[in-house]
Each structure stands twice: as structure tokens, then as C-alpha cells.
């Protein structure tokens, strides 16, 4: 996993390497300063050597400035390295997601992918920053300080051998005992967000049923839980500071007592006052390094879970691969299904399509009807290889769809999905998804075919009307027609509409189908619909039931021969469906 993440450093390698180098330089200087300081005090001030005081003092000043430069540079390179690393990581993930097949997409939900791209990457970036800076600084500082302390006075330094484990174990224990509470808190946070989200989305329901108090109570329970668990976690973490103070103060007192004795008893030879002050500052830096290390551990711990989630995305292999020598040209648009079987995911047992054989001649129209879950959408999704068949094969113009170049295939097959999506941007921008080079005339022409031009031209901004995120500012029927126009702009060899005119009135629906017949006679057209009226004039109508072909024929044949089709037709007629009057 680490190797995989290292790949995302790329052009920031230089910054990543320079950071620890400057950190080390900074640490080195920081250690040297108290050492030299002791000299200044002992020889300069105590020894009353003014010229030494001045010359050595100025040397120290230069050293401090050097340290400043090193510190600034390490901070600078660290910022670039970590921000750059997370930039690449986001890019790698996003690029990988774009390679995903529908299978892969189904596995991750959109919201989980968004969290991985944002919060998780931020956590990993934080950890990366810690790793190249603090995780280098703290241990080296610790070791250098310890070495320096031992060189000043080995006997006195022995006490660090006790102090370090005491503080270390204490800090580890705090992490160990508080961690489960923190993970629990994050779960409750999710719950809290869930309650708020439901409440906001369903506000009209809440208000209509006058359930404000009920909702407050529900929310109060969760927020009370957060209070309790978070308090428990923080109560443990609150031990951090007193523990640190306890150890630091104990060291100070011991150092003062034994240090003073050593100085006095040796008459200021073995140990000096300067040594004592250096020892005390080493003690401080050793103990604060431990503190820093424990912080690094906490952050790495949090980042670990995030890193795993990111790695899941990066390692996900697209289940659709191009053949080695794909066919880049589609000659003919005749579609043939040969004993096709299909099931979602790895579960091959529960198939949603079984033994489908079907021939759709080029330029003809196929209508598909059937209840929810009969496999209508699954069937058509096999044509542009949104999913791959698990049994049998699908051919277009006599060539297995798997042999086509994926780009060629999807370019020639235009599909209007059941779940229509428009993207924030102008109508024109949205339509040009179909063909980015399309002229304004072509765009208008496609909209006329899809019966969209009439309502677009009533908008004050016409084709430059801005579509809000999710297309919330156009009605359902308008959205569907825009999506059809977008697909038409591709000038596809095969056009598939997956229940794409459900919100369009029957008359417009009929006009759209008429336009298909007149304007794109050579394209093969497949129309899935709930309304019989949308398919009744198709060349063939396929009735699906439980993943199998129940019947195939024209409207007249099916009315006579197929029970399901007849039932559907009759219920829709009984409802006084508009088309009866046409």
C-alpha cells in the first residue's frame, strides 16, 4: 500500500526529499545552541572572558539565522510536497474512477467516493506532512538530546531511562484507551448527520404532521450521546498535560537536587552551572519530543483507515478491458442476442436475464415492455457494454461487442438512461456532450427532433439558460427531452431509450417517435416504456417476464396472443389513458 501511495509523489519528489534534509539541519542547529550556550555562560560570563563572549556569541547568532533559514525552507518544501502529494492522489483516484465500469461504480456509492476524494485525502495529506517533518524531527531530536545529555553528565542522564518509559507508556495508554471512544464518536456523528439530513429533506413532512418536538427529542438523544462519549474520550486525553507536567517537574527537581550536589561536591569541575541549565533544556526537549511522537501516532492511526479506503479505489481494476486489437469501425447496426444470460456482480446464481435470443434488424424499431424487475434495462445495457454478458454473446453488425473498441462502441450507441442526469451548465453545454463540435444549427436541429426546441425558445435565455445542479429548474418532461436531444447529437447508429419519455405527454411522445422514423431511418432504435402507446407502432415488441422472453411480435399479434401484454393494455385503457382518444 505504501509503495502505491509513493507513486503519487511524482513531480514533488524533490520537495519531499528536501524537507527532511532541512528538518535535520534545523534539529542539528537547535541541539547545538544549548551546548554552545553552556560554553558562553561558563567561559564567557562565569570565566569573565569578554572577547570570547563576544566572538562566540556572534557565532551563535549566525547559527540561529542558519537555523531560521533551514526552518523556513523545510516548512516551504513540506507544504509543497504534501499539498502536491494530495493533489496527485486526488487526480489518480479521479482518473481511476473514470476508468471504472458500471460494475465498479455499483460497488462504491457516489457519496462514499466523494468522502474518499476529500476527507480521506485530507487525512492522508496530514499524515504525509507529519511523516516527512515531525516524524523525522521528533526521533532525531530525541536521540540527539539524549546523546548530548549523556555527554554532559552520564550519571544524571540515567534518570531519562526512567522518565522516557514512564511518559511513553503513559501516552500510549492514553491513545489506547481513548481510541475506541473516538471511533465510536465518529459513528455517532454519522448518526447525527443522518438525523439532520432526514429532517431537512423531509421538512415538509415534519411540519405537516407537526412533529417538530418529536424530531427535537430524536436529535437531543443523539447529541446527548455525542456529549457522553466525547466527554469520556476527552477525559482520558485530558490526562496528557498533567502527565507531561508531572514527569517534567519531577525531572527538574531531581536534576536540581543531584545537579546542585554534583556541582558543589566536585567544586565546579565535573559539572558546572552551565551544564545544569543545558541538562534542563535537554530534559524539556526530550520529553516534548515524546509528546510529538504520540501526536504523530494518533494522526497516523486516523490516516491509516483513510489510506485503506483510498487504496481500495486505486486498486479496483476495471472489469471492462479493451481487446488487444479492437475493431474501430462499426459497419452495420443489426443487433443479435445469442442465448444471452446475465447477472449482476459475482453472484452468478441469481440471473436477471436467461437465455435471450433476439435479432433486431438494422434501421428497425424494437419496443420492450415488462414489469419492474423483468430485466428490461439489463438487456439494453449489454449493447454498449455497460455490463458484460455472463453467458452467450451480443453482436452488432456480426461482430461481438467485446471486439469493438470501447470508445467506438459507445460513440455509435447512444443511450438515454432511465436516471437522466443533466449537469450544471447552460443547455447548449449540456447538449454538446453528445458532440462537442456540433454547430448551433445542429444543436437546434436535434432539439427540434426531440421536441425540445419549442420550450427552450420560451426561456428568456433560450439555449444559454443555465441548468442548476441535478437539473432542478426544468420539469421532468423537459429534462427527458433534453436528454434525448443530447443523445441524438451523437448521430448514433443505435439509439436506446430506457423509459425516457415517461413524463412526456403522449402527443409529444408520438411526435418524437415520428421524428425518429423520418430523420434517422437508418439507426436501429430500441424503446423501453411503461406505456403501451409508446411502443405499439414499433416493428417488433418484446415482452419480458422474470428475465425471459415472454413474447415477441407486433402490437396486433401480442394483443391476441400474449396475456401479460393484453392485461397491460387493458388496465391502461381503463384508466382513460389519453391515447384512447387519439
Amino acid at each position: 500500500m505504501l509503495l502505491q501511495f509513493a507513486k503519487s509523489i511524482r513531480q514533488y519528489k524533490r520537495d519531499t526529499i528536501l524537507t527532511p534534509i532541512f528538518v535535520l539541519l534545523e534539529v542539528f542547529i537547535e541541539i547545538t545552541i544549548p551546548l554552545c550556550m553552556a560554553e558562553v555562560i561558563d567561559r564567557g560570563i562565569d570565566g569573565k572572558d569578554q572577547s570570547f563572549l563576544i566572538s562566540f556569541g556572534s557565532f551563535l547568532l549566525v547559527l540561529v539565522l542558519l537555523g531560521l533559514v533551514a526552518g523556513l525552507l523545510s516548512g516551504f518544501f513540506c507544504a509543497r510536497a504534501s499539498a502536491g502529494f494530495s493533489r496527485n492522489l486526488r487526480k489518480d483516484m479521479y482518473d481511476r474512477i473514470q476508468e471504472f465500469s458500471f460494475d465498479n461504480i455499483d460497488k462504491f456509492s457516489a457519496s462514499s467516493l466523494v468522502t474518499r476524494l476529500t476527507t480521506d485525502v485530507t487525512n492522508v495529506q496530514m499524515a504525509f506532512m507529519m511523516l516527512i517533518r515531525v516524524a523525522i524531527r521528533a526521533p532525531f531530536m530525541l536521540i540527539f538530546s539524549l546523546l548530548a545529555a549523556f555527554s554532559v553528565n552520564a550519571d544524571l542522564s540515567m534518570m531519562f531511562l526512567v522518565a522516557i518509559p514512564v511518559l511513553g507508556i503513559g501516552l500510549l495508554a492514553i491513545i489506547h484507551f481513548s481510541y475506541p471512544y473516538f471511533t465510536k464518536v465518529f459513528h455517532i456523528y454519522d448518526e447525527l448527520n443522518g438525523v439532520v439530513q432526514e429532517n431537512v429533506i423531509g421538512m415538509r413532512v415534519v411540519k405537516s404532521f407537526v412533529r417538530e418536538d418529536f424530531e427535537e427529542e430524536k436529535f437531543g438523544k443523539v447529541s446527548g450521546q455525542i456529549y457522553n462519549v466525547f466527554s469520556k474520550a476527552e477525559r482520558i486525553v485530558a490526562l496528557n498535560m498533567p502527565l507531561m507536567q508531572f514527569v517534567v517537574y519531577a525531572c527538574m527537581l531531581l536534576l536540581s537536587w543531584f545537579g546542585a550536589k554534583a556541582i558543589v561536591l566536585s567544586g565546579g569541575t565535573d559539572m558546572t552551572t552551565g551544564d545544569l541549565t543545558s541538562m534542563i533544556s535537554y530534559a524539556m526537549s526530550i520529553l516534548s519530543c515524546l509528546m510529538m511522537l504520540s501526536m504523530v501516532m494518533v494522526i497516523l492511526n486516523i490516516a491509516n483507515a483513510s489510506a485503506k479506503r483510498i487504496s481500495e479505489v486505486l486498486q479496483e481494476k476495471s472489469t471492462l478491458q479493451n481487446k488487444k486489437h479492437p475493431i474501430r469501425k462499426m459497419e452495420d447496426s443489426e443487433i443479435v442476442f445469442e442465448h444471452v444470460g446475465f447477472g449482476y456482480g459475482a453472484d452468478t446464481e441469481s440471473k436477471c436475464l436467461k437465455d435471450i435470443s433476439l435479432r433486431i434488424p438494422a434501421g428497425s424499431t424494437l419496443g420492450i415492455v415488462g414489469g419492474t424487475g423483468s430485466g428490461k434495462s439489463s438487456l439494453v445495457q449489454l449493447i454498449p457494454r455497460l455490463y458484460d454478458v455472463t453467458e452467450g454473446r451480443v453482436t452488432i453488425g456480426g461482430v461481438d461487442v467485446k471486439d469493438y473498441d470501447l470508445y467506438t462502441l459507445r460513440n455509435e450507441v447512444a443511450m438515454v438512461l432511465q436516471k437522466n442526469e443533466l449537469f450544471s451548465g447552460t443547455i447548449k453545454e449540456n447538449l454538446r456532450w453528445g458532440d462537442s463540435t456540433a454547430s448551433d444549427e445542429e444543436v437546434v436541429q436535434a432539439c427540434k427532433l426531440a421536441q425540445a426546441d419549442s420550450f427552450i425558445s420560451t426561456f428568456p435565455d433560450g439555449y444559454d439558460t443555465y441548468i442548476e445542479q441535478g437539473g432542478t429548474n426544468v420539469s421532468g418532461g423537459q429534462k427527458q427531452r433534453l436528454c434525448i436531444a443530447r443523445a441524438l447529437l451523437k448521430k448514433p447508429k443505435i439509439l436506446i431509450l430506457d423509459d425516457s419519455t415517461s413524463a412526456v405527454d403522449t402527443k409529444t411522445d408520438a411526435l418524437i417517435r415520428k421524428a425518429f422514423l423520418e430523420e434517422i431511418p437508418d439507426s436501429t432504435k430500441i424503446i423501453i416504456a411503461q406505456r403501451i402507446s409508446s411502443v405499439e407502432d414499433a416493428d417488433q415488441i418484446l415482452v419480458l417476464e422474470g428475465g425471459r422472453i415472454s413474447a415477441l411480435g407486433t402490437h396486433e399479434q401480442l394483443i391476441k396472443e400474449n396475456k401479460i401484454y393484453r392485461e397491460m393494455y387493458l388496465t391502461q385503457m381503463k384508466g382513460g389513458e389519453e391515447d384512447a382518444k387519439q
Partner: protein
Amino acid sequence: MQNNNTQPVMKRKHIMKRLLSYIVGRHKALFAVVLVCIFISSCAVVLSSLFLETLIDDYITPFLTESAPNFDGLFSLILRMAVIYAFGTICSFLYNRLMIRISQGTLKEIRDDMFRHMQQLPISYFDTHTHGDIMSHYTNDTDTLRQFISQALPQLISSVISVVVILVAMFANSVPLTLVVLVFAIIMVCTSRKVGGQSAHYFIRQQQSLADVTGFAEETLNGQKVIKVFCHEEQVKARFMKKNDGLYEDAVRANIYGNILMPLMMQIGNLQYVLLALVGGLLALNQIGSVTVGMIIAFLNLSKALCMPISQISQQISLIAMALAGAGRIFMLLDEKVEEDHGTVTLVRAADVEQDTAEKTEKGWFWRCPAEDGTVSYVPLKGDIRFHDVDFGYTAQKTILHKINLFAKPGQKIAFVGATGAGKTTITNLVNRFYDINSGEILYDGIEITKIKKPDLRRSLGVVLQDVHLFTGTIMENIRYGRLDATDEECIAAAMLTNAHDFISRLPDGYQTMLTQDGALLSQGQRQLLSIARAAVADPPVLVLDEATSSIDTRTEALVQSGMDRLMEGRTIFVIAHRLSTVQNSDAIMVLDQGNIIERGDHDALVAQKGVYYRLYTGDFELE
């Protein structure tokens, strides 16, 4: 931060004051104890620096000249220090512990206040704010507050106290040396303000560009399948990269300023440290101002102790700025105007009717109408709704509904038909006062609806919305949402009445099936059936039905339809029709166009009229 001058600063001051009133104002006693503890613990830190001076000047240096030094005095000094340290440690433990109650308590109060306030906000608030924006008050904004209260605030207090105590101690020791330290302290404060301000500025910008990336990712990942179908991968990649680069730029700047702050502070501290030794040493050697070695060492330590809190504050600047921004947004939510309710008329059970009226014997509910002179009259709840010359607009500038007149007698079914934006849904939103009308009046059983208390008004109206919203919980709980005191039997009876019982009992856990994510595991039709059952449990005399537009298969649609039909029996019904097949048996059909009722009458009359309704009916127009 620095350059967007005075006006926001004033505002920030105001936010800070209000935030503190939350934190301090509601925990006065606790906070006082915390302050005392922080004070003692900071004093212990300062005393430990002075302690070294005493140690060296009063003990070590004289001992060196004595032949047989007596360590008893030294021992008692150390003991004294040990006691002081013990106090300091205990106090810092105490204030850390108490601070948790303050910080978590404040956060809980803020969250609860926000949610409580949000429940009172008018629907228009939710129309004009995206869900994401509202949600972020509970997540991001509260989170920045958490860090501020539990981390930055105690740090800030202890730092300020330490700085003051240390400066006092320094002045007491040596004025010239203190001046040297003061100069550096001022340099440090200025640097940290400048650099910290920059870093805060970019951190806030980074937050915004992160939101930008999130928004883009959300939109494209939700529409990922469309992207695939149109082979649009390369284009979205390029657009993502552009936003990603923006985030990178801000992140680099924010982190550079954030990263260099600490080394900057530390090296300025070191610089001061060395200069102090130099100046102090020269003063001592030349015997100016009675400077001793112990004093220099104590000063060195004091100056270190002074740098610590200053650089600690500098680390918190970004945090404080972000918390203030977050608190500002939270207070904005808390300052949003709540729904007004001047109603005095309430709904009471027949049994609670104090007066002997003719209808006293009737079962059911009554409107209790207090008159201004103190007398109370009772009106039976029937479900008679009338609109008189109602005008309405979402904003004052634009009227959406014009002079709407209509009446619905108890038990009648009124249907609204018209294109999207004609005002169908708007009319029904006026009855339950989601929005208030501009002029005219709406009467419920002869009482003006503004005189009825909102909760009672809404309780007397059932609503089945076109977008179904279910809540996390069991199916039973979701049905009971209609009336909280309904028994299980009543819920099941409601489900049976509305055709929901069949599919519920086919589920493995039946009525105890847990629903999550707005009932994701149910089909659209099933969710609709549940929402109808929920309204049935509430059993209101007046019902507003907004038909579903999404396509459900024919069989379920028939079930939903007959469920609705049964629910409608014996009630006053307003139905917003998206399919004409369902309105033919209405008592009256209102055809709306751009906020005007252009045709009205029953089905046969309207068809005979051969107007707009007729053209809709024959499929010339689309409804949606």
C-alpha cells in the same frame, strides 16, 4: 485577513462576544474555577524559571566557596518547589477536566439550539438554502468550534496569564534585560499576527476550494453512468484537474504560512536567547545594573517561557479565524426569523368542550375560539375550506397567484390541473400556512386560518407529498409518524386500508423491517403506499394529495390509486393531478395557468367546454 479592514473586524468582535457568552455565560461558576486553575498552573510554570535563579545564586554559587556546605536549606527549597509543582499539576488536571464539561456542554447546547431553531423556521428557508449548506452547520462549523473551545481557548487564556506573570517577574528582576525581551516579544507578536493572519486567510480559502472540488466530484460521480455513456471521461478529468489545481494552490499557500510560523517563532526566540546572554553577560562583566549569573540564567529561562505561550497563540490563529467564521455562520442560522404564529384558536376533543353546546354530544374535534372579551365559543371541525380573493407571491415583487376564489365543502374533492409552474402546489401550501398569503383570506370552518394556532391547523390537514420522505426506523414507526399515540393495531389497520399491508407482510421482518436512507430498499410504489398509510393513521378531515410523477409499473400504480381512493372517503380532498385519469370523479376541477384559475367545473362540463382542459385531456398539452 489583514486587508479586509475594519468592518468585518467589528463583526468578528461581535461574533466573539456572542460566542463567549455561550461558553462563559452559561457556565459562569465552572469557568471561574477553570480560570483560577489555569492561573495557578501558569504560576507554577513561571515559578519554576525563577526557582533556578534562587538555586544558583543562593545555593550553588555560595556553596562553591564554602568548605562544608549545608544541603538542608537546598533540600527544603526543593521540597517547597515540589509542593508548588504538585499544585500546578493538580490544577492543570482540574482545568483540563472541567474544560471538557464546558466545551462539550457548549457544543451540545449550540447543536440543540440550532436544531430547535431550525424546526421553527419557515419552509421558505429550506427553499433558499441547499441541504449541503444546512448540513455543514452541524458538521464543519460545529467542528471548528469544538477545536476552538477545547484547544484554542484554554491555550489562549493560559498563554495570556503566563505572559503577564512572566513579564511581572522579569520587571521585578532587571529592567534593562526586560526591555530586550520586550522588544523581541513585540516582534514575535507582530510576526505571528502577520504570518498567522495570512495562513488563516489561505486556510479559509482552501476550505472554499475544497468545497468546490467536493461539489464537482459529487455532481460528476452521481452522473458517472451518463459520463460513461457519452465517453466524456477525458473532459471531466480535465475539469476536475482544474479545480484540483486551484485547491492545490490554496493548500500550498495555507500550509507554507502555517509551517513557517513555528520555526520563525522558535528562531526569533533563540535569537533573543543568544542576545540576552550576550547583553546580560556584558552587563554582568562590566558590573552594570547589578546583573548576576543566576539572574541571566533565570532570564534565559523566563524568556524561553515567554516565547512558548506567544508561539502557541500563533499556532492557534488559523483555528480561531476558522472558528469565528464557523460561529458567524451558525449565528446567522440562529438569527433567521422563525415562523410567526399569532393564532389563538386551538383544536380540542369533544370531551374537553367546557360549554354545553348543541353539538356537545357529537364525537370528534372542536375549534376553541376565544373572543377578545374573554368568552369562548366552540365550532365543530368539519373540513370546510374557502379562499376569498387570495393573492400570493414568494417574493413581494412577483405575484404568483392572482385572486384565487374557491370553496371546498366537507367531503368534496377538488382537483388542480395545469402545467408545471401554474401554481398547483403553491395553492395547497397556503392552506397549511407553509407560506402566508399577501392579500385576501382563507377560511377553515369559517375561521380565518391566521387565527388558528399553526400546530393545530396542520394537525387538521393531512398531506401526501409527491416526493415521499421516510425516516430511519421500522416500517411501524414510519406509519406511526402520522399519529404518535396510535397503537400497533391502528397502524396495521391503516396499512390495510391503503393497500400497504400486502407488501409489508411479505417482507421477512414485516412491520419491524428497518428502513434506512429514506427507505432505499423499497420500490418507489411501496414508499408511496407507506406515505399514504402514514396519512391514514393521522386521520385528518382535510387531505392534500400531490400525485407522484415518477413512473411506477402499472400494477403498483393501480394499488396506489385504490389506496388513495379509500383514504379519500369522507374527507375534504385537494388533489394535485399529474395524470388526468385520476381527477375525473372530482366534484370540481380547477385548471390553472400562470396563477389564474382559467377553467372550473366537473369533468363532463369541462370536456363539453372544449377549452384548455379538453386539450390536455386529448393529449395536446403535457401536464408536467
